[in-house]
């Protein structure tokens, strides 16, 4: 892991309050990144924001030497980040966390199940799975039509289903409704999104091996402060989301 001052290449609002940001990162660093990892971002230069913000890696381009993040403007920190302009610097810890270990899995077809700001990390994962000739089906859930992003990108990876809570786009309801409705399945599933969604997915797909990416409030982002823990399902010990995760096997930790 490194701390780098990187230059912003592009900033674009691609859906409601949803920012796509491209950042210049060297090939050397990009080549270490695994899908599912995240960066830990400093907000502003001074002391007002002492904690970094964790944002998943959505995509990277080795040739252009860029990294893509997609984040939602949620509170003051993401609002500050959204105001950054091309050629300004951004300070990152990169890469953080374990990522999805896809080298070890044997699968013909997998499901990518994302909700809201859980969608971005699945994109780079999907690209990597596609490179391994694994068939990818994506199920993406959003609040409303105004929040939908990256549908076309996911379509280029395989069949893509959209669910919106209010039914203004795609199927009305949750990602689990889509799974039911279209009878979707795979040898594995990979999921990222709000905890209630992860729980529903874990329950629905209890017979399928799966990986879940978790969110927790963080301090250090590197495993040193014990802020971001999650209990193992046996209740006996804690895992750190920033270091042991953010990706865990289904049924490994308490949701």
């Amino acid at each position: 892991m490194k701390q780098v001052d990187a230059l912003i290449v592009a900033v674009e609002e691609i859906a409601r309050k949803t920012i796509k940001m491209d950042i210049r990162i060297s090939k050397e660093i990009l080549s270490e990144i695994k899908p599912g990892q995240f960066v830990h971002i400093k907000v502003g230069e001074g002391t007002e924001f002492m904690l970094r913000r964790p944002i998943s890696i959505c995509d990277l381009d080795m040739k252009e030497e860029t990294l893509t993040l997609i984040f939602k403007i949620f509170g003051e920190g993401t609002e500050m980040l959204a105001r950054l302009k091309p050629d300004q610097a951004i300070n990152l810890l990169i890469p953080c966390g374990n990522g999805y270990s896809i080298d070890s899995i044997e699968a013909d077809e997998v499901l990518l199940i994302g909700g809201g700001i859980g969608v971005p990390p699945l994109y780079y994962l999907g690209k990597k799975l596609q490179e391994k000739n694994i068939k990818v089906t994506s199920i993406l859930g959003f609040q409303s039509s105004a929040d939908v992003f990256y549908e076309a990108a996911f379509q280029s990876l395989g069949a893509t289903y959209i669910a919106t809570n209010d039914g203004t786009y795609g199927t009305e309801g949750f990602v689990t409704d889509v799974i039911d409705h279209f009878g979707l399945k795979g040898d594995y599933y990979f999921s990222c999104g709000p905890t209630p969604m992860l729980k529903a997915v874990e329950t629905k797909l209890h017979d399928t091996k799966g990986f879940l990416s978790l969110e927790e409030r963080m301090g250090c982002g590197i495993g040193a402060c014990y802020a971001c823990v999650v209990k193992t399902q046996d209740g006996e010990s804690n895992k750190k989301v920033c270091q042991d995760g953010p990706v865990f096997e289904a049924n490994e930790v308490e949701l």
Partner: protein
Amino acid sequence: MSMLGVSLPGLALKNPIMPASGCFSFGKEYSQFYDLSKLGSVMVKAATLNKRLGNDTPRVAETKSGMLNAIGLQNPGVEAIITDELPFLEQFDLPVIANVAGSTIEEYEAVASHLRNSNIAAIELNISCPNVKEGGVQFGTDPNVAAEVTRRVKAAASVPVYVKLSPNVTDIVEIAQAVEAAGADGLTMINTLTGMKIDLNKRRPLLSNGVGGLSGPAIKPVAIRMIYQVYQAVNIPIIGMGGVRDAEDVLEFLLAGASAVAVGTANFENPHVCSDIIDALPFVLKEYGFDSVTDAIGKGHINA
């Protein structure tokens, strides 16, 4: 002695900079960023007698120029720390300061006894943790209780004992004097201020524990004030902390009366912060007319 060196009970420090307890685990993670041998010392995460899982999450919250934490002393227990964690630090050229916590005086004693079998240079006696239901903070707010824990841990320990003071008290000088009289070899101060943030959406305190400990630049003025007052009232050295993030901050702590300075929250903002400070400190000392760290200690007092 070198420009940056400081000699304290049990601690021959090549420089006065060390990470603060709980903000640096046992060093492994930060060793990715720089060679830990560069540090003056390291204050490792609190040890209790048995393994503790700590509080539920959320355990941290951001505040303006600071943060709240309520980790709740998660740690694998003192034996596991001695066996699994401390050996990693032996490869580095630095004295290690263990942080001792507990819910009862007996637990404090027991942890200190266990640590006899380890390679530590000093103990930081944490009687000021605001984030556990039992133990922790009340040991640090009553001078008699603070003195008693100090006495008992001193007797159990094989290394010098630095008592970590809570800032959540009416009269910090009284507590400092009580633990000095009870045999403390030094003081570390300050621990976090008790604070709270409320989640407007959930309509409840954001931290699952309710209250948490406030740290970071926000609390620096309180730390400086307390160190300044205690320095005038005791004859044991003080390791200062609370909001330090650059070498100028370190000099301010030295002037207030600290002999060494720990850095906590700022590690999260900048994982290189301790290393950066060590690089900058000689220049900052010179800029303000000091020949060495020891030359600056206590020099902010009006009659110094």
